[in-house]
């Protein structure tokens, strides 16, 4: 397939950012943050997943229809998880 505009340096930067975010997650897991702890842990995971999708998987430079697939997927996952929390949490 054709050469991707993203590559080389962007891959190295993405890789380093993923390693740094992993380190931050580990460091935060040793601090008692209450409800903020899991919010930060999953927020960082979402940021890492986003970096992989955008740069390693080239969503950043892909056509709109692929953005639509990813956005629909994110919406469905959020609906599944939030719906379950609302159901179980409010009993």
């Amino acid at each position, binding site marked *: *397939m*054709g*050469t*991707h505009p993203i*590559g*080389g340096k962007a*891959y*190295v930067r*993405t*890789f380093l950012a*993923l*390693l740094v975010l*992993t380190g931050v*997650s*580990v460091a935060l*897991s040793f601090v008692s943050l209450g409800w903020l702890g*899991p919010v930060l*842990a*999953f927020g*960082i*995971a979402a940021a*890492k*997943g986003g970096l*992989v*999708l955008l740069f*390693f*998987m080239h969503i950043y430079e*892909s*056509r709109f*229809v*692929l953005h639509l*697939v*990813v956005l*629909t*997927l994110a919406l*469905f*996952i959020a609906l*599944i*998880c939030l*719906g*379950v*929390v609302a*159901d*179980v*949490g409010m009993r």
Partner: protein
Amino acid sequence: MADEPHVAEHFDSFETQQHAARLGMWIFLASETLLFAGLFGLYVAYRTLYTHDFLEAAGHNHLALGTINTVVLISSSFTVAWSIHAMEHDRRRTSVLCLAATLGLGLLFLAIKMLEYGLHFREGIYPGGHYAFAEMWNPGAKTFFTLYYFLSGLHALHVVAGMGILGWLLVRVLRCTETPRQHTALELGGLYWHLVDTVWIFLWPMLYLTG
């Protein structure tokens, strides 16, 4: 020309064919992700019900081994991306080396996972009704470790499938079936491996960091 991309007759151009291949792969990846999303929903439900037990059980998992495995998979995502990048720039040798490194990292991930399972088995931490870990005898911990085995086991199966695909791609690159102008299989196989990495990125805080 040997490197002239093959275009199937129902596509009007190579670009349209590429786009169709990518879209098809992304729809497959989305359906795979929804399989995990259902299990994530189950995890969220039980964690809401047994918050304290889940945190205690997750704290018992081996954070160092889980973190090493996270770094291993992130590195493997980088090497597979670099393999495709090298192929695009006609550096076949680098592409082969990066694919081989990705396979090696996949194998290392599985070896560490097996080590972890072994450590759990020694303590009597088995899934479902076979759970026999007296120190953490509560319904929340039992549920957590059952989900742990199911989620990490299903993910490990995806790692094995991904390694099979990468091995096949390695042969294709060595045989020059994948070329700088046409390496659709390599790119789509790489996407699958990145999905395996992304799923683990979310499993790691679910199973290790909640302590």
